């Protein structure tokens, strides 16, 4: 694969689908939550961690994957799930706790399971690490192809699981990529305060694997770095820590005013510059770019309508699925 016009148009499209999804969810989230803010109120209850600003990560990395590859994501999963091809109608329904949701209303937005595209997420920080490595091990034992990727924030790189699993991946030479999304903030704690090294990708040398840092939040650069890491994993060259400088434009979660972020650290939206870049390169016309945006908005509006029209699960369904029969 290479950075063809089709691929770049598709990455742009995935970024806009993700942004449209999150913008729609943010709109729904505030319904019923004013003037008194309470997580439990409104049609979209609970915590909501939106991906605004991180869309290039999902689009760029997922463009380098095959159907066999496997993903675990974290509490901020939308941009990765959407770029991976998770059904947005059922994902929207899951966020609203509806019976038609991916998990019939048992997961919510942090727990997105879509085995048909090898996607799972966990709300516990860095706890996607080990399951992803285990999936890579399973494929090796099954003699089937597939690289496992876990997506996390830079804050997760200070968890014990991160270090234990990287060592295991290094020892076992597993086809594994740890995608560290460096948005500079773990809730309100800056990377500088929390992390002893400037770049988590430098930690790769401690675990006998490759490390690469992409500073641009541009899906072209992210795609090329991901493609290098994928080639390494597929050829038996082992794991990679792929650290991607990205943005967190909508706070840690809804309700986070981000007053702790100093003015000089305000983050830029990656979508307008990528659009301008593709137009300047002749990959897209302005009209085509507008059409992609309009199609994404319409697709998500339809998904939200589907979710809103869907029924809630019956209360008694709480007792289903505790165990596999």
């Amino acid at each position, binding site marked *: 694969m290479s950075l063809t016009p089709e691929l770049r148009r598709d990455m742009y499209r995935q970024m806009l689908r993700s942004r449209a999804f999150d913008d729609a969810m943010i709109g729904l989230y505030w319904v019923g939550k004013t003037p008194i803010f309470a997580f439990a109120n409104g049609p979209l209850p609970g915590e909501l961690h939106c991906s605004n600003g991180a869309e290039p990560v999902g689009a760029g990395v997922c463009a380098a994957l095959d159907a066999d590859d496997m993903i675990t994501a974290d509490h901020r999963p939308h941009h990765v799930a959407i770029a991976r091809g998770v059904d947005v109608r059922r994902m929207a329904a899951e966020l609203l706790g509806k019976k038609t949701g991916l998990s019939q209303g048992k997961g919510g937005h942090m727990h997105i399971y879509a085995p048909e595209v090898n996607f799972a997420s966990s709300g516990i920080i860095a706890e996607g690490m080990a399951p992803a490595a285990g999936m*890579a091990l399973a494929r090796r034992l099954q003699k089937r192809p597939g690289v496992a990727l876990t997506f996390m924030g830079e804050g997760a790189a200070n968890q014990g699981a991160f270090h234990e699993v990287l060592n295991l991946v290094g020892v076992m030479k597993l086809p594994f990529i740890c995608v560290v999304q460096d948005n500079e903030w773990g809730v309100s704690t800056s990377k500088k305060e929390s992390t002893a090294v400037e770049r988590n990708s430098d930690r790769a040398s401690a675990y006998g694997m490759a490390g690469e840092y992409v500073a641009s939040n541009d899906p072209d650069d992210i795609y090329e770095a991901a493609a290098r890491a994928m080639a390494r994993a597929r050829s038996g060259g082992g794991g990679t820590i792929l650290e991607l400088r990205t943005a967190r434009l909508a706070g840690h979660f809804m309700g986070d005013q981000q007053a702790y972020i100093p003015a000089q650290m305000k983050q830029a939206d990656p979508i307008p510059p990528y659009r301008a870049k593709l137009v300047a390169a002749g990959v897209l016309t302005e009209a085509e770019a507008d059409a992609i945006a309009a199609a994404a908005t319409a697709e998500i509006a339809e998904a939200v309508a589907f979710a809103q029209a869907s029924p809630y699960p019956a209360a008694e369904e709480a007792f289903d*699925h505790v165990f596999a029969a």
Partner: protein
Amino acid sequence: MSRILTMARAGREALDWEMERRSEIFVLGEDVYNFGGIFGTADGFGAKYGADRVINTPISETGFIGMAAGAAMAGMHPVIDLAYIDFIGVCYNVLLNTASKTHYMSAGQVKVPMTLMIGTGGGYNNAAQHSQCLHATVAHIPGVKVVYPSNAYDAKGMMHTSLRDENFVIYLTHKGTAGVGWMGTPIKTTLSEVPEEPYTVPFGKIAVTREGTDVTLIGLGMSVHECLKAAVDLARDGISAQVVDLRSLAPLDRDGIFAAVSKTGRMVVADEDYLSYGVSGEVIASVVERDPRVLRAPPVRVCTPDIPIPFARPMEQHILPLAGRIADAARMICTRKTEQ
């Protein structure tokens, strides 16, 4: 054909039989390849199955038990040897939030079939960090099956059942019951006639290990054997004690417990786990919530008190729920007048 086996050999036989026939089963853990696991459950498996299926890991329980959960999600059935339950602190999130919750949170889209073997218990002077039972701490988590064989027959049958289950199963063995070299002569009542052919023992069914009419002594793991010793002692005093082996904590056979206790009207629960917030209280609740009138005397718990397990022999032997304490408790409620 059957032979007399220890629990460790019986469990090993079941694992071996299933591994020979099912390529999705593999063993993962510390010291499993050369050492066969701390209880010898995978003894000789390294040479027989090779390093692909008997995978030695570094001392990284969060890492490799989490990997097992991921491998299970991707179609394998990992078997993990976590030597001592005292070590769950270093991998508890995997138990608490991943292996136990994924099936539910995915509405059944993703299964996590894995078997986690853990040794429990004290009584051999290993102090507060290597002697705990903590079975209530794992049985408290929804989405986990927790089984606890106390003899070789059940050890084999429950291992087959665990390996054929599509869920996360924690298979507990009290170290003192396993019959491994470093724990001295095996306790006689842990040994059983074990058929060579495979068989399953269902989860969620108590076993009445000894019939009796005056009092029901309920145990799990090692305390079953202490209850059996107490029953022999009580018989000398003319007290007929029934002994119940819980065998499975999740699911818990509440109907079976109620039926057994209804027969005698008196109950003593012997549990080597800590007294408070534990299995002992849960067992009593299974009876009194349904009908307290079946009890002719208040129920009694004989447990490890709420203190860290002491090292020195006189102190440790004093606090464990051994046969003497169990028999004393039974005598007390059997001689006490029925309260009107």
